[in-house]
Every structure is written in C-alpha cells, then in structure tokens.
C-alpha cells in the first residue's frame, strides 16, 4: 500500500476552490469545498479534452454529492469516486485525502 504524502498546508487553498499537486509524476486535483477542514482529490486530467484542468473547475453539488464541473465543457466529476455525471462510461481516478496538523495529505 502506498504512503500518505504531504502536499501543502490547508491554508494555501482558498475555500471553495481547487489546486493541482504533482505527486509521483501524477497531476492530482485537490479541492477544498468550504472553510471546513475537508479536502478531496481526483486526477487533474479532463478525460474528454485530455487537458490537465479539473482543479480549475467550479465545485458544485448535485444529487446531494459534491462534483467539480470541468472548466472546458462543464462535464461534472464526482469528488469522492471520480465518476462522471454526464457519461457513466467515463471516470477519473480518485485518491484518498486527509488533513493532518493543518497539512493536506494524499495517498495515491
């Protein structure tokens, strides 16, 4: 099993936005939906456009779950499992994310 990797302090992520981190050569989009100490992580690549942009999307709520709308064509990806709301055959990788001592940690 892979290790938890320290990425940045929670402070550096504006509430209700996302950032992108480089972990083990992978681009990981990390989202902080609110002021609370809770973050989510999925792969940064929009599988439709094949561009690394998901961290720059708007975080949204549908069906009582949180998603990010791709900034390119607005397909929505689930922050928990990476599934796509528009097309059940498409998904992105989702990763474990937690806060420890004010630091964001990700496990691939």
């Amino acid at each position, binding site marked *: 099993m892979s290790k938890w990797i320290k990425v*940045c302090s929670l402070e550096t992520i504006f509430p209700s936005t996302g950032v992108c981190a480089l972990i083990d050569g992978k681009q990981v989009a990390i989202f902080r939906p609110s002021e609370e100490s809770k973050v989510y992580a999925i792969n940064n690549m929009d599988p439709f456009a094949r*561009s690394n942009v998901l961290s720059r999307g708007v975080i949204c709520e549908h069906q009582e779950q949180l998603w990010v709308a791709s900034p390119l064509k607005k397909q929505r990806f689930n922050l928990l499992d990476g599934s796509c709301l528009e097309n059940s055959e498409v998904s992105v990788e989702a990763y474990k994310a937690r806060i420890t001592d004010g630091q964001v940690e990700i496990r691939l």
Partner: protein
Amino acid sequence: MSKQKLVIIGNGMVGHRFIEDFVEKADLEQFEITAFCEEPRVAYDRVHLSSYFSHHTADELSLVKEGFYEKHNIEVLIGERALTINRQEKVIHSQTGRAVYYDKLIMATGSYPWVPSIKGNESKDCFVYRTIEDLNAIEATARRSKNGVVVGGGLLGLEAAGALKALGVETHVIEFAPVLMAEQLDQQGGQMLRNKIESIGVNVHTGKNTQEIVVGGETARNTMKFADGTELEVDFIVFSTGIRPQDKLAKQCGLATGRRGGITIDNNCKTSDPDIYAIGECASWNEKFFGLVAPGYNMAKVTADDILGRDNEFTGADMSAKLKLLGVDVGSIGDANGRTPNCKSYVYLDENQSVYKRIIVSEDGKHLLGAVLVGDTESYSDLLQYTLNDIELPKHPDSLILPSHAGGEKVGLGVDALPEAAVVCSCFDVKKSDIADAVAEGHCTIGAIKAETGAGTGCGGCIPLITQVLNSELAKQGVEVKNHLCEHFEYSRQELFHLIRIEGIKTFKDLLAKYGQGYGCEVCKPTVGSILASCWGEYILSPENNGLQDTNDIFLGNMQKDGTYSVIPRMPGGEVTPKGLLAVANVAEQYELYTKVTGAQRIGLFGAHKGDLPDIWKQLIDAGFETGHAYGKSLRMVKTCVGSTWCRFGVQDSVGFGVELENRYKGLRTPHKIKFGVSGCTRECAEAQGKDVGIIATDKGWNLYVCGNGGMKPKHGELLAVDLDNETLVKYLDRFMMFYVRTADKLTRTSVWLQNLEGGIEYLQEVIINNKLGINDQLEKEMADAIDSYECEWTKTLSDDKQLARFAHFINSDEQDDNVVFTPERGQKRPAFIDEKAPTYKISLEEA
C-alpha cells in the same frame, strides 16, 4: 450449454443496427457474435455521407460508439470479405481463408451502385457515390478539374451534385427521365425543383440518354455523347443511377432470390434457409427492395425479435421522405404521382417564392394518399401523420397547404389528434406512446427523449414533432416551465438581482443562507458572482468571491482547449500606439505566444501558461495597458471606424466617442458579453448594427441601435433613438445597460432579452426615453457607482501575493504542465494534437 453462434455479414448501417438492437434485447452470455466488415472501417452513417466533405473525419460519421464492440465482446472482422457460405456445414469462408461457423446467419450485405453499361464508363474519371473511399477519390479528382457531372437526377444524384458544387467545380446533372426525382415527385414538382437548382448554378439536363464517354475534348478531359446527338465536355463523371441488392453470396450458396434481384425473405426476414436471415437493401420482400434506411432498421428489429422468439413482423415500409437537396426543401409522401384510381389533387403554386405543394386525396376526399412539397416542407410531418394513421381530412383539405395569408386557415394537425400508436420517428420506429412513456418517466428535454427512445437520432426530420409531443405531454402532467436558476435557488436571475440589491447582500454564502439551499453549483455560483460584481463592483477574486468564478474569470484569461490562456490587453476603440505594439511584441516573443489580431480590433496572445500570466500582465501593465476583459461576461470592446478625424466621408468623430464609451463601461459585469460599435457615417464600416449597442453618425448627431449581435444567430440591432448629442446618448446608454443588467436572465444576450421583453423595442423606448417605470434616476445612479468602483483586475491581482500564489500550475512544485505541448505552424505555434505528443503521455492517458 454452448453458446449460440450468430454471424452477421455486412457492417453497414443496418448490419450495425441489428447488433445494437440485439445487444439491447438479448442475454449476451448465450451468444457468440461475429460480424464481417468488408470496408476498412466499422459502420458509418451513409445518409449523411456528403457531410464528409466538410469535416473530413470518418470518426464523425461513425455509428459505433467507442468501445461498443469490445464491451459486448463482439468480434468484428474488419477488412474481411465473406467469400462463400456452405449451408450444409454452416460455415463461411473469408478471402483470408478464415472459417467462421454459424448457428444463425444474418445477411446485411447492402447494395451496390448500378452503373449503366455505357461505353467508356470504366475510365478513371468515372466514379460512384457510396463509400468514404469513393468520396476521397472524387475529391482528389475534383481538385484537378474544372467541371464534373452527375449521371442520375434522383435523390442520391442530387445529393452528389450538391457535394460537387461544394467542392467548387462547375456542376452538371444528367437525367434520363424527363423530370428530376421521378420516383418521389410529380412533373410539376420536379420542374420547380429544377428551377431552384438551376438558379443556384447547377446545370440540369433531362431526357438525356448517355451513349458513350470518349476520352478527350476541347475544354475538358472527356466528352459525353447522348442519344439525341448532343455532347457535353466534362472532366469527370459520378454515376448515381440506382442501386442493386448485393445478393452474390446468396446466389453462390443457392438461396432463393427475387426476380429483380435481392435475397427473398418472408415477414420474419427469413430467407429460404430458416437459419439465414436477410435485412436491409440486400433483401427482397414481396419482390420489393428498399433503398432507405428506415425499413432496413425495421427488418433488423424483426430479425432480432425472431431469433429471440418474440413476435414481430415486417409488413412493408413507408417510403415517404423529407430532405434538403442543394439547399432546397423537398418532401414526398405516399402516392406522390397520383396513381391511385379516381384520386383527386389540390395544388398550390407560388412561382415567386418557388414553392410547389400538391396533395392527393381519396375519391371521397376523406383521406390523404400522397403529397409533394418543394420549397416549403413545413407541413410535411402533419401530412405524413394524416397518411400513416389514416386520419380523416378536414372539410377543405386545401387548407393544409395554403399559406395563412392566402385565406386558408391554419388547420395544423395538433399532436393531440394523433393516435397513441402513431409512428413519430420512422427511422427508429418510435411511437407517440413511447415518447409519452418516456416523459412520464421523467425525461423532460429533447436530449433526454433522444437518449431514452432513440427518436430523432436518425434523419432528424421528426424533431419538431417530438418537441410538440413532449410539450403536450408536459402540459398534460401540469409541469410548469420554471425559470428557477437551479436546484439551489428557487428564484430567477432577475429576482436574485433585486434581492441582492435591496437587501445589500454581499456574499454568496449570505445569499445561500437566506434564499437558497444546499451548497451551490456551476450554474448559480458564477451567476451570483456576476450579480455581486455588477451591484457592488466587488473584486471578483476576493477570498469570498474567488470560488464563484467560472472558467475564464477565475484566472482572468480565456482558457484554451489545452488549459493554457489567452492574454488580451484593452485597446479602446481599436487604438494602439506603436510603443504599445512594441511592448506587446516583446512579451509575445519572450513567452513564445501565438499572436493574432482578434475580431474585436485588438491583439490576442495565445498559449500562455497559467504560471506565466502574472509576469506577462506585469510587463503589459508597466507599458500602460490594462485588462481587456476578454474573459468576462462584460463589455468586451467598442469597434470603431476612423471617422471624421481621417476619413473623407466621416461626419462624426467615431474613434473619440468609441474610446470614451469603452472607458466608461469597461469592467461592468453583465448577464452576457456586450459589444459596441461606433460608425462615423452611414457607410457603417464598424458594423455597429451587428452589436449589442450600435451607434451610427448622422449629420445631426448619432443614431442609437440596440440589441443586435453577430455570432451563432446574427441579428440586426433595432433603432432606439435618432440624432442624439453625445450627452443624451450616454444618458440613454447608462439606463439601457443597467436595465439590461437588472432584468436579463442568466447568459442572455441583449437580442434574446429584447425578444422576450413584452412590448419589444417600443416598450424599451418608453422605459429608457420616457421613464415609464420611473426608475431612470436610480439606473443612472447605479451606473455611476459602478463606473466609480472600476479598477483594473490585473493591476489589483498583481499587488496581492496570496493571489499570485494561485497561478502556479502546481501547489507543491515549480514545474509546468508537461501535457501542454506545441507544434510549429505558419511561423508560430499551435497546441499539439494528441498523437503529436510524447508516447509516455499517451500511455498514462490510457491508464487514467
């Protein structure tokens, strides 16, 4: 139990449709499915074949969803031709020597183009029109040709002629019969079609019997010789003289075939061998074969049902058709030539508008037997329903084809008059009741109905009718069309605007707590972000507003498809100093940005990494530029002509006024983007009437046009007021802009806003000029506040270190996105296509 082996020969539209239908209905665990596909690619849309010339991607035409065959474990033998069938052993041998055994065999071998045996037709300048390979060959030849001819004036022939015309060669159509489309149109309809086609520059020759094609000519590569002694010199020839069922394999293995060709089938689509079915154009049912896709789809369905032991029968097909040929609308229904004994016709002819309509009714005048429509096919779906469902005609059937101004009442057939079993989409055999069921299950948009029922996804001709059924069903269920912003706010944008303004709400959080529910989404967040900016002139990237901003606003640049940004500094009125140009050039060179003059009279720099944006903007701002708001739903620019300052025709200073206006309204957030144009004289070189605000100089002042736009649905602006002086015009504009900002729905451009404004331009004049609502002082004050609070967003952003930290691509590394790759093109660069990127990247993609 071993799996049943199902083999399909032919992977055209019908062969593929069978597989789709079968996959949907059957338990695939019990079947092993193999398909022969002779062409080098899987099934594609032959109906829209001509569109290939405009996009040139076979993928665009493909009917097969990516991964469909793999997902369902179906083996498709691409490029393999079934050579022989051995019915005793139940085995097929292909040209590669492969043996494929079957339990049930479905032949969907289609048809082949029939070319009359004219001497010289084997020349390399002769083509047929059926496959993508044919099209590639025609296009290559057209490039070195001046003119081309299509032999055959039927449906497909005219389609091909349209393609030739689009390829830019002088186009001729040769038809053996005295009229065009003799199958579908009567003589007068054919004549009308001919007039229209000739008027767009296609040469039509009817009653011509081609005898020989001879190499050489004075003006072209070949000469066609006709039976009447005339000749035509042409470079190349496309034959579209009909199709014949491809029944070679059937004959080889001894299946019964029709007198006119085609594999004989019964009502269950079974051939003379009970384990072999034939569907589509290769099949002969009651000595008839069908060259349209809808009957083929129907046969595919019947066959799938028969194999699965379900009841279903093929009972013939309606050959009605509605299409657009060379830009002309043509419709043909049922007995278009009036061959039914004792039938009667009603005819409407308008040579001025080139419209011809004829309906053929039964002797007693109660039933519609057929129709011909040329130039106007609006009544097609209504008429078709009359024949398909045998609905009794109104007392005066001619009212169905008369235009409303000609005294004929509009006796359109309401969808409620259709029986539940009425076939709405004949391509996919979808009934009115199917659509009603889908609506009842909660599919309430056209998109959802299409996805659920397949209706409207074939030729698309039935979409207006589906829309009517959908609306009628929604109305029946009492579904009210709401303009709620989204699931988080039960208010329209206009209502939210007032709530924010009146209650002085400054953050999304407060608004959500007071008037909304849940967390918010990609619809309400940017909308509210825009309203807050309009109302309070708030900095859009403040910590409270940051997460509300959409794609472009959040990093103050237009995101391009590869995730890089464009940089467009403001050049008010299109003015830029040489020194400014140098500064732009320096930045562009330093950061290797693709540089282009935009449609908005300014310079765009493309391909900037997010992380470089702050440095790029710092240099531009130091050189005196400010943000151009090219990324915002806000005033983009004011386009101007040089006006009286330089132009010898100009009567007012259009540049000066344009610069003043651009500086006045820059930065104001609006429901959608806004563009202005100012022309210095009536010649209108700034194209102001195609803008949201258009100002055109007169010798007494300015005429003010509003609510025009270019883009997807171009619309000319409407005249709001005439001969205004500068001061009055600015006052009107303040009111107009604020009124729009206050009342428009989200993402509504001014033209649509005006369209939905009850009373239209007259009402707007009452409000803006005559203060009908008594709000003009307020509007002006709000605008003054907005103007006062203007600041360049980029200047502000550069002064805030916490903001700047957001621009790095990675939060934990200084590296840049290695997926952003460029390829040189015309001395600059462009984003690399996926197959131009490094192979490692492609692999990691597949993993992801």
